[in-house]
């Protein structure tokens, strides 16, 4: 006997979720795995004892019987009568509870059943992730669709045998414009050309992009320092827009959703793009596409650096290099809001002023990577508990001197050149923790990505981070955007507007 449990939060009042779930046949509407379903003998779907007979998109067929239904406890219990799957004695209970703090819904889904020996883990995943967790996501999407359509009945009938209404099928490629890197090299190697966005395949989404973020990584991709594209190819790792259509197996996106992403592989400098859907998140109503395109990569970087690579606490002293840069300003502001004391390094008095405005208590102006003395002085000789270091080689020795005993040195970039190697004895001398994190590992799983993105949107709301778009360019002027970025003359964020 195995027991499978999954639970999730639905961003809707309990009455709206229960209105669907109390109908045993509603799963054909909101669950992405169900192909068709009907209640046998025309019984009402809230009749205890009624049987739903349904087919999954993978071809399996099941009959399930309603054993208990409670409008008081928001609870439904059902069992499998027959299935083309080797599951025996399957009894499942789903229960909703109100989240009074926010008017959301907690959904608990649990079952016990027998499977063939040795296949327990497989079925835990099939049922737990493929049915339950996918169901949470399907319900969220369905409710969003309902909100847009105005009412649920506008989208589907309310009883009887319904068949699944799929996403409009594959169509022609959509034509748009994109910036191509013709060969690795300078900004002049980028030129505008026509792009074709194919109809989305399985697990893919097609997005009409309205704003594209410009990041320093794009310069490295263009120049060939980071071998992530084979020219001619489109660079860029960040954008926002509106979903045109989705391929099979995509449960969390709908045509018309406003979305954003920051992920590999590059290819965001274009007006329409077909890409893997699992790295794309839906934008809350209060976040504009332009803001999202500007803050997804930097905001998610600040989030994982402050909350996942480290856990910055009130009272910590944090040293932020490049404190007036796009990511630097976010790290300063967010760390200060977490209660940390923020020290920074900057290259000019003007940038020191910017950093100070963002919560950096002591911006150290330095042109030669010398800062350890001032950090130690400002901390009574202790040094910084955490160092966020995007500088790399030239700051290596000073970082070792500036970090506190048992401190955490986070090397997330190397603007001054790569650190070839770090002798372990250097760390031992102060019990230093060294991290060399890359954002894309932290956002690889959908669950983690959604949590990180949600925190970024929350941080935008609370003012812990800000979109500060000072430079807008038409897509065709991408080369100029790169020149401006490389000249180090820009502050704030750059976006391209296709």
């Amino acid at each position: 006997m195995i027991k499978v449990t999954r639970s999730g939060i639905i961003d809707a009042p309990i009455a709206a979720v229960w209105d669907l779930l109390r109908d045993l046949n509603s799963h054909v509407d909101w669950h992405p795995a169900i192909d068709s379903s009907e209640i046998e003998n025309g019984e009402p779907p809230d009749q205890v004892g009624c049987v739903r007979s349904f087919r999954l998109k993978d071809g399996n067929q099941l009959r399930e019987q309603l054993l208990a239904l409670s409008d008081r406890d928001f609870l439904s219990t059902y069992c499998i009568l027959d299935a083309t799957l080797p599951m025996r004695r399957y009894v499942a209970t789903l229960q909703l509870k109100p989240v009074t703090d926010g008017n959301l819904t907690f959904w608990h889904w649990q079952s016990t059943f027998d499977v063939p020996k040795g296949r327990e883990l497989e079925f835990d995943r099939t049922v737990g992730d493929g049915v339950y967790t996918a169901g949470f996501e399907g319900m969220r999407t369905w409710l969003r669709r309902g909100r847009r359509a105005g009412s649920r009945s506008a989208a589907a009938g309310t009883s009887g045998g319904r068949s699944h209404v799929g996403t409009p099928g594959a169509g022609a490629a959509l034509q748009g414009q994109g910036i191509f890197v013709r060969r690795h090299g300078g900004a002049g190697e980028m030129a505008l050309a026509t792009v074709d966005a194919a109809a989305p395949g399985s697990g893919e989404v097609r997005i009409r992009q309205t704003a594209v973020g410009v990041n320093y990584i794009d310069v490295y991709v263009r120049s060939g320092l980071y071998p992530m594209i084979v020219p001619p190819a489109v660079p860029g790792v960040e954008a926002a827009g509106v979903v045109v259509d989705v391929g099979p197996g995509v449960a969390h996106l709908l045509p018309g959703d406003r979305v954003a992403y920051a992920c590999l592989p590059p290819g965001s400098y274009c007006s329409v793009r077909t890409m893997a859907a699992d790295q794309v998140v839906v934008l809350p109503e209060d976040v504009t596409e332009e803001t999202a395109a500007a803050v997804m990569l930097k905001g998610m970087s600040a989030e994982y650096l402050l909350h996942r690579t480290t856990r910055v606490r009130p009272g910590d002293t944090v040293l932020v290099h490049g404190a007036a840069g796009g990511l630097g300003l976010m790290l300063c502001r967010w760390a200060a809001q977490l209660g940390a004391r923020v020290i920074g390094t900057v290259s000019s008095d003007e940038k020191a002023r910017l950093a100070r405005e963002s919560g950096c208590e002591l911006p150290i102006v330095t042109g030669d990577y010398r800062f350890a003395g001032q950090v130690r002085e400002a901390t009574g000789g202790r040094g910084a508990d955490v160092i966020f270091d995007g500088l790399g080689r030239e700051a290596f020795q000073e970082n070792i001197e500036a970090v506190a005993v048992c401190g955490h040195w986070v090397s997330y970039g190397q603007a001054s050149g790569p650190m070839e190697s770090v002798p372990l004895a250097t760390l031992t001398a102060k019990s230093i923790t060294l991290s060399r994190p890359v954002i894309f590992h932290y956002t690889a799983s959908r669950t983690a990505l959604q949590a990180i993105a949600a925190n970024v949107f929350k941080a935008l709301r609370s003012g812990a981070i800000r979109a500060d778009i000072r430079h807008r360019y038409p897509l065709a002027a991408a080369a100029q955007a790169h020149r401006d970025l490389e000249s180090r003359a820009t502050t704030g964020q750059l976006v391209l507007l296709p």
Partner: protein
Amino acid sequence: MIKVYTSTVLDSPAHVVWSIVRDFNALPKWTPFVADSRIEQNLPSDRIGCVRNFRTNDGGIIREQLLALSDYDFQCVYSILESPMGVENYIATLKLTPVTDGDKTFAEWSAEFDPPPGREQELADHVGQAVFQAAFTHLKQRLR
């Protein structure tokens, strides 16, 4: 008899939240309204039957008795022995449930009690908002 129910979603795994709230003597650490707390007769704070004696910021003394504690269900049940609220038959349950989708925690705090006549709404609001919700909000900030 009135019932109060408050629930929230905490952005940390349930075992982490439980490690904070399971200590029956830890109210000063994770609520904003308790000035100090002790367990009477020097009992361990996870001994069923122990009594926490705490003082709120406004000076009120409250004595509560631990009725049940489950590390298996992440659940704690207690009753009020004495308080300035003047309620009777007060029993409260604090329960955590893991949210697998996102590795968070669903936290529920409920109470049943008999209020003095005429003060039903006032005390329901006080317990639900000024006590339970305020503690949840404070705990959220602490977990950040």
